[in-house]
């Protein structure tokens, strides 16, 4: 039995709880002292990092939920890698939005990373579920942030989908418990020993798949993330999908279905990103594409490919945030993220442009930048397995990454046609956050060993050298010739001009026909109710009058109220019993 003391000490030592307390205390600061919020949030992030470091690897906070052993805090190598990068990202996000003065958004900026951190550190499925739901609820405040009708509608759609993921996880954990008799969060797998799909595995995989934005389940990212403000989008871009990646890596390593899912994830966003005019949405498609690479690595499930997947997640959080920050700075200064309305900003925002280029080079996996350090492990996994078509698809997707994230983002924001806009350079705190992200992106690229040491299976990387001459040459060939293709297409004017448009994606299904069906169902229900009321209201009212006459204050059975009440209750129970007997 868990005592209140055990529970308190388990909570107090949890870095995620420390972050959450920081978020709550920050939210309690009166608006007159709002400038103190972000410094306080930064202090609590540092405190959570310190706690993580002093605890070290191990299992803490063993409790019992209804007699079942629960493990609220498991710091193994996998959890530690994600915890470290989540804390770095949280700190950078706090700095980036330093001048925001919004109680709810400030709260979400720390409570949401706290929930994601709690999720990756969870040792049992119940704890995971609790943090999973807190992440959904805390993050929606970022979507609601700007407060316009469109953002509120998008926020409600986002919350519905996130809660659906939570419900599936809850169903999955109940099924896992029924199968195994344990709520421990370990490898679950999709299939049983005989190769049949397990319902428990399917539910949990779907829950994780929604948050990882699997194909057809992906569009909440493009729908919700760009609706947040310049700082909120960046916070959103980091945590949910990577919590899902961490969860997939723990529960479904070596699940072959994930390879196919991952390949589709890497490919389809390339084409949607190409035609998308809103650069924030382009980056959202980029999230889908990047998570696809990680999902493939998890699908192969070898020590090297798992290292590649989670190591790539670590780097991706840094450089994808950097790209979001650069576009966010342009939005902050110009009020738009549309490619048709941007361009030529390099003249007055040179530092933001330079940082954006570092992000672009990193995500494209140019040698010397973060993406290169681990991407080879993922593509190499397909090589090791001799899956030629998967390998070719991943190379193809790499050229696609270069197109939409490596070239399109910096080109249409800072170069391309001159929009005539001459905004000031980004504010110092944004430059600081972008500068730190850029420095980290280069550091990981140039000296990846500390990242390799953080991976779950560092021994599998003992002989891995990303800078093997052949690997550098192959990568440079792929990327430089792809850039050459871009230059050639621009020169012959075959590169398509950006067009101000809305591109339909899977969200259309629930935003247009789904909404129509719902509207029709509501109208039909109202009509049926109205008809029923017209048909039966006379008889119902007459019956009620009769009951009132007998049981009411003047009624024969009300002279002694217990008798009258008993008579009515008996009549009701007998009626129900009669109906049940008839049905049975």
């Amino acid at each position, binding site marked *: 039995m868990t005592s209140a003391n055990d529970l308190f000490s388990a909570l107090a030592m949890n870095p995620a709880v420390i972050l959450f307390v920081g978020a709550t205390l920050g939210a309690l600061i009166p608006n007159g002292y709002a400038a103190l919020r972000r410094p306080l949030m930064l202090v609590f992030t540092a405190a959570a990092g310190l706690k993580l470091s002093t605890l070290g690897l191990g299992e803490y906070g063993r409790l019992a939920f209804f007699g079942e052993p629960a493990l609220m805090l498991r710091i193994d190598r996998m959890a530690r890698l994600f915890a470290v990068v989540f804390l770095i990202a949280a700190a950078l996000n706090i700095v980036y939005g330093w001048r925001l003065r919004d109680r709810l958004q400030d709260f979400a900026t720390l409570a949401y990373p706290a929930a994601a951190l709690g999720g990756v550190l969870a040792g049992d499925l119940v704890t995971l579920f609790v943090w999973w739901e807190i992440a959904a609820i805390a993050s929606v405040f970022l979507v609601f942030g700007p407060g316009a009708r469109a953002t509120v509608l998008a926020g409600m759609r986002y919350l519905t989908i996130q809660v659906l993921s939570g419900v599936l996880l809850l169903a999955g954990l109940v099924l896992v418990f029924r199968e195994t008799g344990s709520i421990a969060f370990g490898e679950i797998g999709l299939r049983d020993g005989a190769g049949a799909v397990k319902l428990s595995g399917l539910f949990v995989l779907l829950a994780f798949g929604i948050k990882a934005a699997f194909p057809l389940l992906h569009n909440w990212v493009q729908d919700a993330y760009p609706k947040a403000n310049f700082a909120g989008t960046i916070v959103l871009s980091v945590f949910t999908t990577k919590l899902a990646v961490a969860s997939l890596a723990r529960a479904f390593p070596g699940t072959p279905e994930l390879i196919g899912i991952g390949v589709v994830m890497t490919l389809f966003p390339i084409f949607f990103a190409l035609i998308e005019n809103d650069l924030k949405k382009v980056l959202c498609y980029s999230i889908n594409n990047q998570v696809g690479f990680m999902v493939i690595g998890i699908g192969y499930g070898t020590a090297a490919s798992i290292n590649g997947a989670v190591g790539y997640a670590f780097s991706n959080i840094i450089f994808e945030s950097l790209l979001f920050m650069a576009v966010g700075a342009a939005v902050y200064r110009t009020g738009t993220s549309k490619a048709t309305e941007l361009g030529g900003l390099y003249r007055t925002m040179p530092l933001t442009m330079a940082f954006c280029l570092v992000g672009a080079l990193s995500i494209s996996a140019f040698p010397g930048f973060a993406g290169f350090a681990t991407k080879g492990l993922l593509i190499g996994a397909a090589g090791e397995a001799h899956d030629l078509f998967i390998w070719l698809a991943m190379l193809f997707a790499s050229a696609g990454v*270069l197109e939409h994230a490596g070239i399109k983002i910096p080109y249409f924001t800072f170069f391309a046609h001159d929009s*005539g806009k001459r905004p000031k350079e980004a504010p110092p705190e944004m430059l600081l956050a972008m500068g730190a992200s850029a420095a980290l992106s280069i550091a990981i690229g140039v000296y990846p060993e500390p990242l390799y040491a953080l991976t779950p299976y560092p021994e599998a990387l003992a002989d891995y050298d990303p800078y093997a001459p052949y690997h550098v040459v192959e990568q440079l*060939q792929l990327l430089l010739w792809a850039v050459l293709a871009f230059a050639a297409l621009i020169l012959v004017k075959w590169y398509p001009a950006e067009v101000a448009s809305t591109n339909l994606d899977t969200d259309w299904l629930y935003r247009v026909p789904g909404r129509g069906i719902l509207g029709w169902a509501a109208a039909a229900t109202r009509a049926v109710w109205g008809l029923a009321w017209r048909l039966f209201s006379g008889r119902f009212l007459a019956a009620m009058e009769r009951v009132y006459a007998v049981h009411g204050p003047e009624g024969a059975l009300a002279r002694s109220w217990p008798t009258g009440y008993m008579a009515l209750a008996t009549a009701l129970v007998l009626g129900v019993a009669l109906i049940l007997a008839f049905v049975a």
Partner: protein
Amino acid sequence: MTEDNSIEKGRTGGWADRKSFRRGFLALLVIAALAAAAAGFVPAFQNKNPHFAVERYGVFFAIYGFVAFAFIVLAGQHLRKLVGRKEDYYDERE
């Protein structure tokens, strides 16, 4: 949010718009791309244990990168015809 924005109507050419920069950048790109392709034929830069036969062709990655990029752009833009709608498409429906 846009309080610091100032829009200058007169358009002045920046360093990236100068022809000399564009030519120089293109020349550098072509030289680097050719050098990378040439390196693919140097034994010291070749993969000794390739997983697939195509890796043995010195310029496989260069050709694949060029073709893949061109295909994505040239074929991908037609997707707009299928899914592209007016910018206020959802505003009218929600």
